[in-house]
């Protein structure tokens, strides 16, 4: 494998975290509490189950083909034409999903920071550094994710300054669970873990695959902890009734905090988020470009051209929704599709691997 695409298990952990924690975190407290009510935090915990299940399946499948990449595995398991079709469909889905991520990101930037700047310009400016980084290869993307993770931890401390406004009664009673509401909440919460399917591609980039499972499960623990703490925090401060009317409760929460000099703290927060919010696009863009280059068996120069073309496709895709509401609706549809990619794909791959007895022994 090209050295530029070799990453460590630890970098894989940061890539997975970077793919999951994006702009969706701003609306997550509303999304999970709208059905689950005060038990939104529980929905977030249970919502992690599908992604953990998917991780176990993908790693199990990956262990059987340690020296291949996902394109080769697909072709081996499903025959060349069907494997190629599955790969292309998956890549199209990822590209669609990332277009929506960019659009929502651009809309939030426009609403809070740059109201007069055309959204198309914001999308373009967001894509420029993303494309540049993807062109550098997987190693650079891994390092960037690691660096940005520490920034993320720092910036996510800021909302906790609103703890002074919290009211413990907003999250009680702990019992008295509305099971139907909780299940809907779990379903909604599971979208927040979208991004773990990236392991299909990145698993094969890791140099020391023995530690992959440990680090990837570790990434889910980190993501889960961040999600639960933010959902609990927003519920404590606003209560789930009030959050139903808030587009992005986490950003509204930051507007509640008053710190002298920083008149609009959310701008300070979003300024940092400009770098952090594009990580899913960065990671998924790498996965798409890398897989396409493997599918067509190209060299690094062609890989660069693929990245540039991907940038154009992402730009066009992000420009299609008419407004933020439409983009968020699309994001909801992408969430449904994510469950297929997250659960059905790993199951089929494992089943095929079992049927074809494509285990390590035969390779």
């Amino acid at each position, binding site marked *: 494998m090209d050295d530029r695409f070799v990453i460590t298990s630890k970098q894989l952990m940061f890539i997975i975290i970077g793919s999951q924690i994006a702009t969706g975190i701003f609306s997550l407290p509303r999304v999970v509490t709208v059905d689950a009510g005060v038990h939104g935090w529980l929905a977030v915990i249970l919502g992690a189950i599908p992604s953990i299940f998917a991780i176990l399946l993908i790693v199990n499948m990956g262990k059987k083909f340690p020296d291949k990449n996902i394109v080769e595995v697909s072709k081996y398991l499903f025959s060349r034409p069907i494997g190629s079709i599955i790969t292309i469909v998956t890549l199209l889905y990822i590209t669609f999903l990332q277009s929506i991520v960019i659009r929502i990101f651009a809309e939030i930037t426009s609403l809070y920071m740059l109201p007069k*700047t055309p959204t198309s*310009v914001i999308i373009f400016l967001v894509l420029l550094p993303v494309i540049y980084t993807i062109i550098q290869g997987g190693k650079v993307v891994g390092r960037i994710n690691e660096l940005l993770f520490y920034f993320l931890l720092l910036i996510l401390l800021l909302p906790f300054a609103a703890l002074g*406004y919290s009211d413990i*009664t907003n999250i009680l009673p702990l019992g008295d669970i509305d099971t139907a509401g909780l299940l809907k909440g779990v379903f909604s919460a599971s979208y927040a873990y979208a991004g773990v399917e990236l392991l299909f591609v990145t698993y094969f980039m890791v140099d020391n695959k023995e530690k992959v499972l440990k680090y990837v499960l570790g990434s889910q623990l980190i993501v889960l902890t961040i999600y639960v703490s933010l959902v609990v925090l927003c519920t404590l401060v606003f*209560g789930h009734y009030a959050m139903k009317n808030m587009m992005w409760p986490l950003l509204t929460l930051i507007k509640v905090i008053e710190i002298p000099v920083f008149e609009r703290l959310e701008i300070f927060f979003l300024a940092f988020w400009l770098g952090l919010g594009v990580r899913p696009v960065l990671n998924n863009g790498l996965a798409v470009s890398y897989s396409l280059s493997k599918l067509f068996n190209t060299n690094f120069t062609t890989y660069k051209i693929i990245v540039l073309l991907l940038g154009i496709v992402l730009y066009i895709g992000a420009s299609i929704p008419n407004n933020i509401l439409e983009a968020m609706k699309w994001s909801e549809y992408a969430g449904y599709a994510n469950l297929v990619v997250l659960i059905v794909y790993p199951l089929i791959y494992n089943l095929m691997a079992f049927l074809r007895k494509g285990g390590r022994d035969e390779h």
Partner: protein
Amino acid sequence: MNTKLSKIFWGLVFVLLVSGCWDYTDIEELSFPYIVAYDTNHMERDKNVEGARISVTMLFPEQATSGSSVYLNRTAGSTIGEVRNKRSFSSSKNAIFRGAQVTLIGEQLARREMNVDILLRQTAAKKSMLIAIVKGRGDDLLSKGIEKDKKLPNTIVDLLKLTSNETFIVNTTLYDFATVPATPGKNLVAPLIELNENKEIRIAGTAIFKKTRLIDTIDQNETRALVLLSGIKGRAYVDFKIYEKGKLIDRGTVNVSNKRKVEVYRKDDKYHFDITITLDGDLVEHFNIQNFDKMIPYIKKIEKAVEEQVKKECEDFIVQMQKEFKVDCIDISKYALAKWRSELEKEVDNEEFITNAVINVKVKAEIDDIGEMT
């Protein structure tokens, strides 16, 4: 050469596309209202404004061109959005609300129900913006108040922000308007301010709301009971009197901070709330000076006198709340919701819930410091 050309090309692209190009505005083209007052339309002042339902008065801090320390802009319209539109015909500068510190709402408008959707929706308005109800009209308070006090904006902000360090008052922000209307069992309370006969701003008491509609107002003394029962944190001077065999033997003042604990249970189909108020602070003054040896038991007497007085004030207020206001303005319904949420969330806002509740008050006073005298 190609690399150089490429760098120049990308450099030019960046220069042309930096987002600041669109969002750049010269600060001279902006104006920053410091206080905004909302009122109902005024029959006389707005008679030429068709369909006027609301009037908005903005107080701007010092403007280089005006030569005065502040200036007022008053515009009427059918909605706040329309007011903003009409305002632009008389003032070319774009008003930026991110610096607005206080929103004043005239009593009449508050009774009609104030719609602050525009403030909650726009990203520029900070949720920590203070909100107060004006006894009378907000525009009158600003226009008359500024005649006497040229630093009126600061006076209002300080009054609303800092007074809770000196006495028990309620503190309301835009955040409360964002959360209370949608939350079962909660009702707004907001500071009530007025211009006194000397044209000086003062906090007159508290405005009691049913959700977001003003239903009544209470005075400064009743506000103390409301704050203590609500558990709104503050520090204040509380006077006391000690009687022995029906005769007044001492009077004085303690300076205390407050805490509240609420326990709720159901008995005989009724909701019982046991509120424990803890007052913790110092003896500031008293007139019946005791010897050092006698002071320890005497402090207990002072504590008991404070407890009895505050308990009586609170019990009187609870009666007033249950018989007159018929809304939970002391924020206790949330404790019942915290236990029986699914059962109560639809009925907690019915007035029977609070009027039929049994509310008991217990006050504990603890004096830590007595100063340099016994």
